[in-house]
């Protein structure tokens, strides 16, 4: 097992990509904290499914945009597990990827951008600020920020969303520089359109097929695809890899 007894926090883990990462981490021996915002039932289902397979997981509710709630959750984790080795910043503010009804540049308000920045950048900072002293004390820690392949090739210009996710990549790089000397690696994963997820429900077959046509592997991304890369970035398999953004989109984006 690649992550035996490592304590991993996965934010937004009650569904989609987050849930897949939580499950795969648990399978690799990690003690997984399944963070979620609203859906207690979903989160518990994930935790139960992990436990039934012999893994270790616990669900913890909090709004990662709220600094105090985040701090309470992290303190709870530290009190119970002593430390944190891996942080996956996966949660995002609710966003519907609806290419047909997206807001045009002129329709967007600053509050739309703010909502996305809060859900991505601020959420990462809320978690990292509090947990950093602990991460520094570990010989090796890994922070993984989930962004999007749209930041590199914005096939559909979701302005507010892409701005938020781009900021996360910038922060990933600056964090990697400052924290490398502490043995903390900071990387990003940029998935392509990932199905099945709730956010992608409104991206209909026509758009999907267009994307598939341009994708070297000829298919869309699954949550498990992203989880595999998240395992890689959390383990010693990716030793000395930091400040990177791995595109998991079937080769649609090549940098």
């Amino acid at each position: 097992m690649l992550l035996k007894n490592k304590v991993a926090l996965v934010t937004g883990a009650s569904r989609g990509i987050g849930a897949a990462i939580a499950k795969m981490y648990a399978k690799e021996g990690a003690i997984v904290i399944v963070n979620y915002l609203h859906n207690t039932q979903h989160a518990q289902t994930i935790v139960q499914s992990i436990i039934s397979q012999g893994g270790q997981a616990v669900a913890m509710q909090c709004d990662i945009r709220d600094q105090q709630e985040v701090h309470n959750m992290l303190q709870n984790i530290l009190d119970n597990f002593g430390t944190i080795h891996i942080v996956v910043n996966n949660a995002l503010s609710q966003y519907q990827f609806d290419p047909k009804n997206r807001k045009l540049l002129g329709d967007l308000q600053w509050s739309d951008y703010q909502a996305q920045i809060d859900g991505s950048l601020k959420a990462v900072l809320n978690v990292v600020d509090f947990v950093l002293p602990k991460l520094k004390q570990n010989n090796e820690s890994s922070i993984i920020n989930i962004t999007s392949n749209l930041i590199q090739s914005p096939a559909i210009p979701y302005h507010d969303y892409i701005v938020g996710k781009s900021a996360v990549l910038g922060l990933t790089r600056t964090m990697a520089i400052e924290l490398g000397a502490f043995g903390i690696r900071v990387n990003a994963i940029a998935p392509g359109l990932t199905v099945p997820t709730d956010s992608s429900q409104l991206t209909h077959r026509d758009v999907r097929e267009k994307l598939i046509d341009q994708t070297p592997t000829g298919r869309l991304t699954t949550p498990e695809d992203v989880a595999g890369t998240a395992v890689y970035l959390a383990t010693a398999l990716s030793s000395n890899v930091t400040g990177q953004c791995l595109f998991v989109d079937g080769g649609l984006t090549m940098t």
Partner: protein
Amino acid sequence: MTSKQTTIDIFHIPTNITLNTLTETIIENESHTVVLRYPEISVTEIKHIANVLQTNQHDYLDQLTTSQIIDVISQVAEKWTDPTYYLRQVAETVIPITTGYNADQVKLELKRFIRLFRKKELKRFVNSEIGHAGAMLDDFQPNLAGGFSKFFGPDLIFQIFSGNVPGIQLWTLIMGLLVKSPTLGKLSFSEPIMPALFVQTLAEIDSRLADSIAILPWHSGQELEKAGIEVADTVVVCGGEIAVKKIKAQVPLDKKVLSYGYKIGFVIVGREALTPEYYPQTIKKIAEDISIYDQQSCLAPQSIFVERGGAITTDEFSALLATELNNYQIKYSRAILQESEKLAIEKMRQATDIESIENSRTLLFASEDSTSWTVAFHDHLGFSASPLNRSVHVFSIDDFLQLQPILKPYQSYLQTAGVAIAPKRLFTLANVLGKLGVSRMSAVGQMNHVSSAWHHDGHFNLLDLVRVTDIENSLEVESEYFDADVE
């Protein structure tokens, strides 16, 4: 796979002496076999060698001027600065096998070290203590009291070398030559190669000069050391605390002993060296001080005092140092340890763990599944020796003036302090440390690299070896009367 074999004579005796058959010791790794050859010697032979050395010195070394001696030694050093020189290549290949030190590190450190014995460095070394290019070692020179003085080196120096760091033995060996004294040396089996090869080069350049040196390895005991002490008028002993004490106890009061024993180095880091701009390099340099020769030299740090109030906290400093030590391990791996050495590190780790139960501010940073490196962080003032081999204690400190009572009990063990602070505070700190017995302050990153004019353990090097003979002014004046031609 065929194993490569290198045979080295780990001794040197004057050309006019023949000894019995040679014994061999074999050290090997996966790809290389090193055969070390040396004679088993007796008390009688030691006495004979001592006589021959003194005759040889009288016939040749004594007749040379200091600058001629410097010339020869510097030619030896120059040969060793050539990467294609065959004996340097032998040393670079064999020393990592016999000592366990990382090969790349040995290569780098040897080439740095050998440069201390080039002409310019030797001239500075002699001038720093004797002055006037060593003229007082060559002849009577006018002194300030109106008379004349000359320095005389010992009739015979018995040197007991340590084996902790390759080449360290050359210091005292060369000191003996500079004061024109013959040396009978006992080599340590831990590292006999560098002195043996160096003297071999010396013999290549000037065999008569090398005839004033006999260096031989033997296992520590009673008889042979006793004989060595008996034939010499000066004893130079380097080594661990117990070994040095034992030898010192055997030397009669009428003989001179210079001893270089166990010392503890430490580091002081001011908050001005922990700014966002400087902290990465400050920490990198300290990791180097800890890693070079795995703290086996007396110069390396065992404790680090980190001032609170820098851009990084003192526990962050420890975490960063731990990462840097891990990086160093990947670059230049530490030597493989004996069980007892590993155990000492395990004990340090356990003690730190226990301390951290009582005091949650105490933290242990340690390499996983190995003893490669260890940082014990104590968020309070204290001082501790470490079990070496890349293990170190870090203590938080608010004010360097608090060091006085902490270091005082260790006064006799203090030697090198690596210091990273601004000039404004340097001299105040230097004064505090000087009073406490610290004899050397260097920049961090340079703790293992002494300058050519350093005062080993706070003593003079050449001046401590020589004695002075004065022709007083009265004699000079009076002797004029006996010049028949003077009116």
